[in-house]
């Protein structure tokens, strides 16, 4: 009973993080900031959701699969977003005009 309650609380927190991440995706000004908000919040939200499913079901087929899926999401999602940021920068997308510094563009010009 205790683990069920804890699992449902973690699931609600995860869904709340998902919603905040998607609000960030709509509100923030350029692609890098959107990637920041969306990746962090949605990755952690989904990992929490899967961990909550593990807590509700305990150690059986569904629970273990949810745990493995949570680990995979935590490892793969940052790598994917890193690749997208690099691709966007090399493809020539400028930073937002309020940005203060861009050492990456300076270095690439020198080479």
């Amino acid at each position, binding site marked *: 009973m205790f683990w069920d309650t804890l699992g449902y609380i973690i699931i609600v927190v995860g869904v*709340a993080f998902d*919603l905040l991440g998607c609000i960030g995706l709509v509100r923030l000004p350029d*692609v890098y900031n959107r990637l920041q908000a969306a990746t962090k919040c949605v990755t952690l939200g989904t990992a929490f959701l899967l961990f909550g499913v593990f807590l509700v079901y305990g150690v059986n087929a569904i629970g273990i699969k949810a745990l493995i899926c949570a680990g995979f999401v935590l490892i793969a999602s940052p790598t994917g977003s890193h690749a*997208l940021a690099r691709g966007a920068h090399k493809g020539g997308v400028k930073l937002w005009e309020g940005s203060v510094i861009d050492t990456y563009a300076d270095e690439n010009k020198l080479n």
Partner: protein
Amino acid sequence: MIDILIYILVFSSALCIYRMGRGPTPPDRAVALDILGTLMVGFCALIALTTGKDFYINIAISWALLSYVAAIALAKFLERKSFDE
């Protein structure tokens, strides 16, 4: 109560689709697609929770794998390079 959570996730997906249609540059759309994939994994987990069928978790795992591969391929495309580099 899980119904409310599913409605919240549907609203989040709608925000993603808004960014996908509106996004001024191609990377914006790619990012929205990647995030939508991760949201769908959470969706499958919630449906597995309500129905108690374990194949929804299998769908979630394969969806996570596919969305990762799609993100890498889209990043290569945005970099304007060929795939074998």
